[in-house]
């Protein structure tokens, strides 16, 4: 009896949730929807790709080295006879793991830093702001090269380096947003009500600057895809035997003069589509109105 009575209610609840989701989606700008779908496609490839690729992405076949695209190999084969299509599908894995991890690290560290600096006036803020300036005085490429040389290139190093490089940039943006909020009445009220500084920062102000942080997260993710692909191309990022796109472009680059364009073109297209997907979402969120990188 109980079960029978609950059934319609559960159905109604599910229907209401579904219609709410539909409503939210229809309110989103089209660029956010297109970008999200494209991003989801690559996440799907990263997670399930190895189940439906036509060839083993790591299997070398010396009979079909650098074969142009045809019916058997839609995107051709690379210098070791590996199927380019299969490698691109599976090659999304590392960058889709490293870039979000690096972005989360940078945005989390930067947000905490920005909250603290923005909330405390005076000495803490003065010293902290100067420290951020000094950190940002290192050109990104210098920071990255030195750290990667000192620690050796690996996925973990890339996450650390990009995270560290992004933290001060995020901190600066969040600090500005927090300083805006500080003067509001609800902060004064909380302070008068005896809430601790920590509680005010994380329970009162943080929810009110979440939009800034969210935009920062999406924008930085786009730059992270951009930077990590570049680092891999330079040999400083994701390392072989990964099927990573940047690595594949670097490998295929040497064969361009022989007219063998497919490895470079298809892998480049994959990189561009991923960066573009993130940027479409960021743009839909109004991220580029007055951004600086």
């Amino acid at each position, binding site marked *: 009896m109980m079960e029978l009575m609950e059934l319609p209610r559960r159905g109604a609840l599910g229907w209401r949730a579904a219609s709410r989701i539909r409503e939210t989606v229809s309110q989103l700008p089209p660029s956010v929807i297109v970008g999200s779908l494209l991003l989801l496609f690559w996440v799907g490839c990263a997670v399930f790709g190895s189940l439906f690729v036509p060839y083993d992405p790591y299997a070398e076949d010396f009979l079909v080295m650098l074969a142009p695209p045809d019916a058997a190999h839609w995107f051709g084969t690379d210098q070791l006879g590996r199927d380019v299509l299969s490698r691109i599908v599976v090659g999304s894995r590392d960058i889709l793991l490293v870039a979000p991890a690096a972005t989360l690290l940078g945005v989390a560290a930067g947000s905490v830093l920005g909250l603290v600096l923005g909330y405390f006036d005076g000495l803490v803020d003065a010293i902290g702001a100067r420290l951020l300036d000094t950190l940002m005085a290192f050109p990104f490429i210098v920071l990255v090269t030195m750290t990667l040389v000192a620690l050796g290139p690996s996925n973990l190093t890339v996450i650390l380096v990009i995270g560290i490089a992004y933290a001060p940039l995020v901190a600066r943006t969040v600090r500005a947003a927090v300083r805006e909020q500080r003067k509001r009445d609800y902060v004064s009220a909380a302070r008068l009500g005896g809430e601790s500084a920590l509680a005010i920062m994380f329970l009162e102000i943080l929810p009110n600057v979440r939009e800034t942080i969210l935009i920062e997260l999406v924008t930085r993710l786009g730059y992270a895809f951009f930077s990590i692909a570049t680092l891999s191309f*330079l040999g400083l990022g994701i390392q072989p035997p990964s099927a990573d796109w940047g690595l594949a472009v670097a490998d295929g680059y040497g064969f361009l003069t022989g007219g063998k364009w497919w490895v470079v073109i298809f892998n480049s297209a994959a990189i561009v589509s991923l960066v573009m997907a993130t940027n479409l979402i960021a743009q839909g969120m109004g991220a580029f109105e007055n951004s600086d990188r």
Partner: protein
Amino acid sequence: MLTGRTLSARAATLLLTLWLVSMLVFFAGQVLPGDVGRLMLGPFADAEAVAALNKQLGADQPVLVQYWHWFSNALSGDFGTSLSLRLPVAPFVLESLKRSAALAGVILVFLLPLGIGTGIVAGLNQGRFIDRLIVLAGVSFGIVPDFVSGLLLLIVFGLWLNWFPITGAAPDGAGLWVSGYYLILPALPLVLNLAGYIARMTRAGVIEALAADYTRTAVLKGLERREILIRHVLRNALTPTIAVLATQTGYMLGGLVVIEALFGIQGLGNLVLNAAKSRDFPMLEAGVLVMATIFVLSAAAGDLVQALLDPRQRRHVSP
């Protein structure tokens, strides 16, 4: 007027930053890798030979003593001896700096007219089709990684159409125009990438200046449109653009590494990249220090130019 106090404060923070950079560079390059002698001679070398080499290189001394030696030598222009070439580092760095400067020059020659020009056109036509087109094109080019756009340009204009050489290094003895011609294809990826950003900043400046009171006053007192645009709108609109240019130096330095690797230009970027890969620390440290110096100096120069153009900024030049 620019006060002597703000200027000297700016110079002091600049020197402090450079000193901090030199420390970081030294410790990341010299201390973290460990035994330099072992690294040079390989894992099978005699322990005595390793110790002797470390003594010769000064690597057996305390870290601070090593830093002082390196720092004082670097101040007098001696950046040590390359581990892989066994030759003094400084001439190589200087030579590569010249090649990178040539590339940066070609980039700026294309970037400034394109970025500022399209930005002004977009700003004056706000909301119209041409404005949307410029902004959209800028954003689209801005998100393509330099090595990808570089490769596409190389394939299309270098290999398929044969309009440009696929290397950025002109043959020896080539004149200024020929050398410049070799650098056009390498320059384009960074030009395309940055032009959109500069155009957006110029556009915002133009729109703001057009709406400002002083522009309305100029219109009301009957000045010609041309004169209003040049004397009132552009002068005010270009100030933020200059600051933006300075902030993009760091991005340009990173772009140089990519472009020089792609087009085989033996510039500063390639020098740093190869030194990093072969773990040639003296070379790497010198290259990185030069890059950081360029970066810090251009940021300071950007602030200074902005202060000179905009009287309101003179009092608080951010240190």
